């Protein structure tokens, strides 16, 4: 049995003109330590899949098993990095991470250990210089870093990221991608990441899950990315294998699953 098992998930939203079938029979198994990207056109249902795994949304049919236990409510073992950071603006950078640390390790770690663990995780994302800043006083990229630190600090079984770098400029995005690759290499996290950036998907993933267009979206193809790690974006730019993977994803997105409005 796989580490994380998404089996036969249907999600139906009630709507004014009848039921809206968002997902139909989504099936996916993920091994421990794997880095999986979900890619697909806007509105196809990527966030819906992630929310079902997070437990924030109940599947209409089918379900999710994590280490053979059914997931039916949210919990810190499936930490989420939200699309727009969602830091609590009245808490400092430190407190935003500390609230998660206190919740998860309140019983198992001493106060001093929890402090060290909070600072350690902020250090991982290079944000330990701004512990006392409020989110309003730091840049978008920094907020996203803190959001990642908060999720890492929960030591989740699965790290769920919903377009974590979507709102960032290309340079900041590249920096954060490097950080995530370093951290994943060091900690061997199991990661499920949503993206709509083809390069990001190929660079970071062990497998890329390509979704068909909605309604009733499902897994279209799964591409195994067998590039050795650590990966370097500059070296890969001229690597034929890398470009082959890239082309595969592009072909899926723009030939097989053209945007409905572009078709």
């Amino acid at each position: 049995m796989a580490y994380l098992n998404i089996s036969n998930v249907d999600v139906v939203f009630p709507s004014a003109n009848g039921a809206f079938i968002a997902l139909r029979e989504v099936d996916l198994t993920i091994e421990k330590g794997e880095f999986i990207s979900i890619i697909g056109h806007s509105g196809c249902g990527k966030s819906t899949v992630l929310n079902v795994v997070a437990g924030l949304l109940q599947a209409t049919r089918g379900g999710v098993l994590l280490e053979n236990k059914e997931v039916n409510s949210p919990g810190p073992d499936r930490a989420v990095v939200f699309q727009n950071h969602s830091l609590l603006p009245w808490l400092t950078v430190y407190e935003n991470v500390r609230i998660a640390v206190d919740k998860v390790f309140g019983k198992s770690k001493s106060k001093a250990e929890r402090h060290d663990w909070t600072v350690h995780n902020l250090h991982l994302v290079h944000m330990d210089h701004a512990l006392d800043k409020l989110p309003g006083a730091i840049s978008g990229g920094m907020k996203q870093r803190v959001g990642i630190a908060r999720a890492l600090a929960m030591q989740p079984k699965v790290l769920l990221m919903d377009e974590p770098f979507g709102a960032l400029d290309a340079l900041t995005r590249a920096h954060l991608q490097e950080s995530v690759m370093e951290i994943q290499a060091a900690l061997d996290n199991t990661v499920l990441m949503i993206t709509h950036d083809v390069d990001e998907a190929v660079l970071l993933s062990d497998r890329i899950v390509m979704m068909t267009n909605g309604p009733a979206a499902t897994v279209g193809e799964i591409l195994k990315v067998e590039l050795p790690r650590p990966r370097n974006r500059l070296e890969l730019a001229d690597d034929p294998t890398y470009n082959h993977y890239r082309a595969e994803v592009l072909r899926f997105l723009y030939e097989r699953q053209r945007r409905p409005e572009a078709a």
Partner: protein
Amino acid sequence: MEGQTQAIAANTERQPPSSPPPPMPAPISPARQRTVAIVRAILLPSAVFLLVLAVWTLVHYQVTRDIPTPVEAWTQAVAVFSHPFYVTGPNDMGIGWQVLYSLGRVMAGFALAVVVGIPVGFLMGSSRAMHQAFYPLVQILRPVSPLAWLPIGLLVFQAKDPSAIFVIFVTSIWPVIVNTAAGVQAIPQDYLNVARVLQLGKLEVTRRILIPATLPHILTGMRLSLSVAWMVIVAAEMLTGGIGIGFYVWDEWNNLNVSSIIVAIGVIGLVGIVLESLMNLVQHHFDYSRR
């Protein structure tokens, strides 16, 4: 002299075209800018103030001599403020006491409004059913003139002080309710999702998410509420009597002591400003979005 200036002008004209473009007007130094800003901040309001004094004086000479001149009012103000806390009898106290009694009633009514209004606002904001239940009542009662409540208060409480406090309460509670409810409704779903992922308990969600997230709205509601309360107290006290700045105005009117009324108007305005600034301070201290 004239020839010299001409020569200089001619000289500048003859500069080769490759020279840098004519200099921009010299930038004003920051220090100078600040001086200008200060002078303006003082001059402009002073001009308006003088204009008001002029109209006021004109009213005295052209409309009715019953309105005192600014000088007469000033003399009265000096007299009133030289003994603000005198007590010569239960109905004859200095203006300081009048203000304090009024503030006491305002604070009592305001505190009640806050204590009742915040929970009601939370209920309305967090539950659809509660919103549907309370919304029509709020909409109907909100625009009712404060003084329409006074007879009800007098009948129910059979006493002046509680009636005045009741009027304050019932007119100043609406901004608290409406703003609190709006604040709760405006909490982004993301914050609540964070709470769900962290598995925060109901109490923790309230303490760590709901209250801080709505605090800016609540404080705005409280600020509006307090200024309404202070505005209403004068009218309420005019009708109920007793010690208080409102009754003071009424009393001086009966004595045809118009100078004192004008002094009282100034005092009411000043106290209003003080209350507003205090609320602003509180807002600065507790409101993350303003820090």
